[in-house]
């Protein structure tokens, strides 16, 4: 198949491992799914401290299950990416460890305490869920299969996140203040989750043409705000004055004043150069390296796909 044929046929779950996909498709799909898989792993990483710090046994169980789910999502997604024949899972995990692997902006910011947790577990996961739901119709079938299971599990995460939010929001005055502080700190990052409003993002156009993506970032952000702004208000959170958001009734659309957001920081984050985020990446990398000996010890002698081999899996 050439690219023109791919664009013509592009539709939900249209292409799978038995189709001969052209290189630009395989590369674009690998980049997108690898980014998604990396984001699951790094999302799990910033939630991880709250397994220990959760304030009840029930919460501990739920946070642990959630982190477990996210690693499981990574496992599913790396496979969906691997099937494109561009990179092996080991290669993608090594890229994540050495700082080449990219992932969502919000997971570059470590969480200071429990009050920040719902910012990730409710708002960021909610935004991610919006995007994921639209990917049930992606053109790479193995990706859609992974998304089926991710969406099946993810409802639990967001409801648990909202439950934590509710609990804090109905706590003491100090709890509410700390919650509002956390919200103000995270709100601009959450708005940046879907990228700049006025550009179509470098790869968005092609990914949409070949059916990998089914909705534009702008539409996704809008759908997210429609659903989650009322939730924020429900729990007494005040939407900060800046960044300015204008609702345009005629278009049922939220306009965000782009210049109110720190895009220079976003750029730094995207390149894995934001120092606290970089430390997250490096610390995870060191942990991965520290158990290299285990992978070597259990490696089947017949398998040679160890770190350092180059040849990507053949089709």
């Amino acid at each position, binding site marked *: 198949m050439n690219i023109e044929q791919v664009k013509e046929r592009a539709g939900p779950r249209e292409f799978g491992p038995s189709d001969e996909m052209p290189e630009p498709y395989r590369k674009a799909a690998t980049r997108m799914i690898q980014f998604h898989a990396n984001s699951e*792993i790094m999302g799990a990483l910033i939630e991880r401290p709250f397994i220990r710090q959760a304030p009840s*046994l029930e919460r501990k169980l739920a946070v642990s299950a959630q982190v*477990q789910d996210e690693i499981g999502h990574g*496992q599913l997604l790396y496979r969906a990416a691997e099937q494109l024949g561009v990179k092996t899972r080991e290669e993608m995990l090594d890229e994540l460890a050495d700082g080449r692997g990219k992932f969502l902006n919000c997971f570059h910011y470590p969480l200071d305490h*429990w009050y920040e947790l719902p910012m990730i577990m409710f708002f960021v996961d909610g935004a991610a869920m919006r995007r994921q739901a639209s990917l049930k119709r992606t053109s790479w079938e193995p990706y859609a299969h992974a998304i089926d299971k991710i969406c099946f599990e993810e409802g639990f995460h967001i409801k648990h996140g909202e439950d934590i939010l509710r609990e804090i929001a109905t706590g003491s005055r*100090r709890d509410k203040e700390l919650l509002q502080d956390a919200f103000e700190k995270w709100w601009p990052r959450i708005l940046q989750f879907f990228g700049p409003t006025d550009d179509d993002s470098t790869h968005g156009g092609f990914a949409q043409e070949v059916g990998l993506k089914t909705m534009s970032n702008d539409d996704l952000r809008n759908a997210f705000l429609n659903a989650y702004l009322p939730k924020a208000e429900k729990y007494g959170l005040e939407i900060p004055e800046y960044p300015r958001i204008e609702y345009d009734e005629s278009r049922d659309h939220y306009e965000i004043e782009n210049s109110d957001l720190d895009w220079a920081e976003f750029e730094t984050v995207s390149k894995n150069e934001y120092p606290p985020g970089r430390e997250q990446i490096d610390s995870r990398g060191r942990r991965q390296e*520290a158990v290299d000996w285990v*992978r070597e010890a259990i490696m089947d002698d017949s398998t040679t796909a160890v770190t350092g081999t180059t040849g990507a899996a053949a089709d």
Partner: protein
Amino acid sequence: MTELDPRDLSETEYAAVTAELETLADDQFVVAERYTDWQTRGPTLEADIAVANIAQDEYGHARLWYDLLEDLGHTEQELIWERDPASFRHATLLELGYETGGWADCVLRGYLYDVFEQLHLGALEETTYPRIADRLGKVQGEEGYHREHTESWLDRLTEDAAPGDEALVRLQAALDRLYPHALTLFEPTEHETQIVELGVRSTPLADLRGDWLAITTPFLGGLGLDVPDPELPESGVRGRDGTHTDDWERLYNEFTYTYEMLDREPRKLLVDPDEVGG
């Protein structure tokens, strides 16, 4: 032996049942806490997910036993979050922190504990406390999986290993470090005599040690490991009597961190202008 009536326990019976339930629950709670150290840090994605599952099983078992203590009038707050760290009864084996990359420690510790746990639960099959008997089956079902999981890992790590191979060296170092602490699994609480006499658990913990040695010594030897002499930790900590290592204090401070922080509005805020005059 006479069955105990949970709604009508004498003071001695109450103390014995409480001590045994705390031993069960605290062991499970702390082993779970340490398993979660491996979440996002497992040697493979699959290993990571399996360890998370085991951690949740163990928390779940802790909850089953803490529930029985709640039946006796305690709250989760008292049993975990506001409890004096020096009154926790778990064995010191379970509280030790891992060294970075210490997967050998993780699976070996899991194995040493799983064998003990199996014997401990087996010794409770004839318990005179009916509520423990009711819950045993469910817990035993999951513990079987845990034990096979740790055994599989130990087999896999040592398979075809020659003396001096990294996996064996690491396992031996972990065994030397953990072994004295593993022996604290068999240390009694101050209520051990009553626990045995009342039949809450008719076999003394110390008697399970022989069975445990008979299972673990040949298994570990078969992996190519030298099993140390059975001696308790030099530091003198015993776990079940409330004496613990420094690692426990750090762990306790971490897991109570949010609990301490939440909802702690100082009383003086009541004179806040918004609050007065209404």
